[in-house]
């Protein structure tokens, strides 16, 4: 009881930062997922190659080192980012790379006949995509997007390494102050992350249900 009163205010301050980094990072990752996923399906080979290079680079190096680069190394090249900007950018770039693969494969799994029917009806390329292809690809994207969101949430704990006061950061500093409450502290931390993850999953599942309405017999 006493432990809770001592630990919670700090952790909740961290929670705000964690949620902020999570939501902004997820938005950036989603935007990049679509942008890069579509570029990977471009007619132009150079565009496809560049997009693939981005994906390989950000998947092939660790998030922590990307964050170090964005926050500690970039200033030497004249780019100064706030810790929040660096954290959001790092998470967005990293999970955007994974997400673009989700977008690409979902779009490619829409049957060719759907594109062809859309062309035969003379729908413009934009309408073809927006009203025919995307609504069929979107339900396929949701489950893997849900997984990536949880991964991204867990990834947010790394921003504590670039001075951002997220939950993990707060926990580490509370640990030095209240060494005797280490067990309740880390238990609380676990529960808080788990609650955010559960809420995220619930939202994604709801989107999935909505995307499926009326589709199957």
């Amino acid at each position, binding site marked *: 009881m006493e432990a809770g009163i001592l630990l919670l205010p700090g952790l909740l301050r961290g929670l705000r930062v964690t949620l902020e980094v999570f939501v902004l990072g997820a938005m950036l990752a989603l935007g990049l997922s679509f942008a890069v996923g579509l570029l990977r399906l471009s007619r132009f080979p150079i565009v496809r190659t560049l997009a693939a290079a981005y994906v390989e680079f950000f998947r092939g190096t660790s998030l922590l080192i990307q964050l170090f680069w964005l926050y500690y190394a970039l200033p030497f090249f004249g780019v100064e980012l706030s810790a929040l900007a660096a954290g959001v950018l790092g998470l967005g770039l990293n999970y955007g790379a994974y997400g673009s693969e989700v977008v690409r494969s979902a779009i490619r799994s829409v*049957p060719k*006949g*759907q594109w*062809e*029917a859309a*062309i*035969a*009806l*003379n*729908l*413009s*390329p934009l*309408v073809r995509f927006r*009203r*025919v292809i995307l*609504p*069929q690809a979107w339900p396929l994207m949701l489950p893997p997007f849900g997984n990536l969101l949880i991964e991204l949430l867990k990834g947010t704990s790394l921003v504590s390494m670039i001075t951002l006061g997220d939950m993990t950061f707060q926990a580490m500093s509370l640990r030095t102050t209240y060494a005797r409450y280490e067990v309740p502290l880390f238990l609380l931390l676990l529960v808080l992350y788990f609650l955010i993850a559960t809420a995220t999953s619930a939202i994604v599942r709801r989107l999935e249900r909505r995307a499926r309405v*009326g*589709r*199957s*017999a």
Partner: protein
Amino acid sequence: MAGAPAIVDANRALQDRARAREDAAVRRPIVRFRGVKKAFGAMTVLEGIDLDLYPGEKVVVIGPSGSGKTTLARMLMTLETPSGGEIEVDGEPLFTMVRRGRRVPADERHLARVRGKIGMVFQHFNLFPHMTVLRNVTEALIHVRRIPPEEARRRTMAMLERVGMAEHADKYPAQLSGGQKQRVAIARALVMEPKVMLFDEPTSALDPELVGEVLAVIKEIAAKGDMAMLLITHEMQFAREIADRIVFIDGGKIVEQGPPEEVLLRPKSERLKAFLARFRNGMGLR
């Protein structure tokens, strides 16, 4: 009083000229294939197709599997690009256009304009599974023709009535039989009022007992209207009933063409004779 005959003459002259213009328009092909070739990689599928399709004309294309019938239709629908030759629609090249006095490959705008004159019905229907029957049909009216939703809905319901699908307007494609799906697909193409309709084996993916309802709809459409039709089918009896002209393709070329009775009952080439022999049993052809 004395002026009256002169006026009558002048009127007649005007009428004659109008009729002459109409005849010329009727005589000008709506679609011309001129030396059209298509190769996929090293494999040549079509080698020099010359084929004219006139307004209102119903042309049935027959030929063995792999002879390039589908490819022919797909090129006209701009789903494939010819490797050589030209396709003209309504007197205008489909795959090239003039820009600054030079003939250049067609851009999306040119394709969209010419493509608007053509509709296609696919072997596997290709309905949009996430849209109701109604939305499948209104979609292009609203987003291509820019017709207000209420009017689009009215035209759609009239068209669904015509193919006998009006009472299924709020269902999704997954809730329909194959024959019903194909009738919706026909309505979807027809509601755009194309000048040419392409049918690529519209009944060959259907259970035998569902073929009749789709053929009946196509026959009804063919009987009315000045829309030209290019129909690929293996239903020889149906071909005979519906076609103004039958075209037999084999080995990437048009081997024989003519009125149905000629082509089906008095084939000249050995290849057509051999092809038809396979249908003779039970097809009602003597």
